[in-house]
């Protein structure tokens, strides 16, 4: 399996956009290399804006640049793309209805050694609460590239979340990315595993192991957390009658939260959530952190067994 980082998928998508759409502009707050924005910068020096270490100013400038028809893509770490600039996004982007694409790298624990100051685990929650904000968390390089291109064609604010580590690149290279459309990666009858971002691969690994034990699971890749593909989730749960959600994010406010809200309203079913439980992260190698905080295939397997037991005991 080819291993690639999702941030490079973003960089590749942005490079392609630079060549195909003259209205695309990119802004960065002193992390051009980390975000893989150098290609775009080199090919389009007049459409690349180095803002310096001033994220609030960057979001405001991006909002203003939409006036006159530009499509700004801002790039910095996920923490500095959200919590640091929440009010700027709220007023100048979301409430003002501006066509800004907030592109956020190094999300979650897999940022690794820099530790909790940089490991944002609340960003999905913050962003999905903003009215009309689209929230996307693709799972691998190919999907991140496709998502980067797709959001340029959507008019309105978008939060695009991706990460630092090299992870399996398993989705098709030529995929068409449809905002808000869940992807069925595997069919099954005993439980539905709904995952986003880096946890999608872990969910597939978990499903394989469970299958060897005779447990059949459906795996759904939710790359768009908002708007959520309610129909796909409800259809699957109608059959399996229980759910595990998995994400590299706080349980509070994350994908699991959105799924639980949907199910409690439309089709109550036992649910288990794999995510970070009301805790900050810490320094360490990315995959060791995922193990320590319970965000691996093994944790999804445990949660799946548990939720099936709950369903059977209902």
């Amino acid at each position: 399996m080819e291993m690639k980082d999702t941030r490079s998928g973003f960089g590749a998508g942005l490079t392609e956009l630079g060549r195909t759409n003259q209205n695309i502009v990119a802004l960065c707050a002193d992390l051009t290399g980390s975000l893989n924005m150098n290609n775009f910068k080199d090919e389009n020096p007049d459409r690349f804006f180095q803002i310096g270490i001033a994220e609030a100013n960057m979001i405001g400038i991006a909002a203003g640049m939409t006036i006159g028809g530009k499509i700004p893509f801002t790039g910095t770490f996920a923490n500095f793309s959200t919590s640091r600039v929440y009010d700027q996004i709220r007023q100048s982007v979301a409430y003002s209805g501006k066509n800004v694409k907030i592109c956020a790298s190094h999300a979650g624990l897999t940022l690794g050694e820099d530790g909790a100051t940089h490991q944002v685990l609340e960003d999905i929650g913050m962003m999905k609460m903003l009215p009309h904000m689209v929230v996307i968390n693709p799972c691998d390089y190919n999907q991140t590239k496709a998502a980067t291109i797709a959001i340029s064609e959507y008019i309105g604010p978008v939060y695009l979340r991706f990460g630092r580590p090299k992870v399996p690149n398993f989705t098709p290279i030529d995929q068409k990315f449809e905002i808000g459309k869940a992807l069925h990666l595997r069919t099954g009858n005993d439980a539905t595993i709904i995952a986003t971002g880096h946890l999608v691969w872990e969910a597939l690994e978990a499903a394989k192991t469970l299958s060897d034990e005779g447990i059949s699971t459906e795996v759904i890749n939710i790359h768009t957390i908002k708007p959520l593909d309610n129909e796909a989730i409800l259809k699957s749960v109608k059959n399996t009658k229980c759910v595990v959600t998995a994400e590299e994010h706080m349980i509070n406010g994350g994908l699991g939260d959105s799924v639980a809200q949907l199910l409690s309203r439309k089709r109550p079913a036992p649910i288990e959530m794999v995510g970070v439980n009301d805790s900050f992260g810490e320094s360490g190698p990315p995959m060791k952190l995922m193990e320590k905080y319970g965000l691996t295939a093994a944790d999804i397997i445990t949660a799946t067994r548990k939720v099936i037991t709950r369903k059977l005991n209902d």
Partner: protein
Amino acid sequence: MATITELKDTVTQIRRDIVRMVHANSSGHPGGSLGCAEFLTALYFDVMNHNTDFTMDGINEDIFFLSNGHISPVFYAVLSRRGYFNISELATFRRIDSRLQGHPTPHEGLEGIRMASGSLGQGLSTAIGAALTKKLNDDDSIVYTLHGDGELQEGQVWEAFMYASGKQVDNLIATIDYNQKQIDGTIDEVLPIGNLTAKLEAFDWVVLEELEGNNVEAIINTLNRAKELTGKKKPVAIILHTEMGNGVDYMMGTHKWHGSAPNDEQLSKALSQNTETLGDY
């Protein structure tokens, strides 16, 4: 082009609009609104090259951003008196289902508003963005902004000051409403902003100071000087000395009318000091 007498009449009518709007809801910000009536009248009725047939993109026209959104009464009054929307809509200010929200927003589709403001300190950044897009579009129009002086206590403004000069955003004229008052008292009591000219010059801006910020003729002259200074690789700032509550005697010389509405008696007094010129809404 309007004569100075006509502009002064417009200002008087806008003062009436402001106090009537705020009085009608017992809420809003009359002090700073009155202090900037001459400035916004000068901008919208004389200095700016703009189109009242509003488009969000504002291609090939000068555009304005109000950063201190709480002075929405004067902004709404000026926009409607200039023809962006019907003056009758001023009666809906701060009411439910209105496009005239407490603080300005494009969210309700009000003509003339391109960016929400209210949470302070964000307007210079957004204006810089619009100015950069004008450059990319080979549009040589100018972007104007207005900021409160107390607003300069927000850190983001200084990020924007640094960026605009560092990156030679020279199609930008930022005016500071220098009335030296904010909600809790004078600027010096709350948090001194010190020698503003020196600070802005240290940030490599061209700085003009206008001591007569409530004299419409003086403002036009200063804005025209500022215009001549654009396109020379530096952003331009105007420190506009204004009187909070200008034109209503009991609102002047105090910070108390920053965000308080006049009662019936106070309204009558304010209106008697500003006789109807263009017809009330």
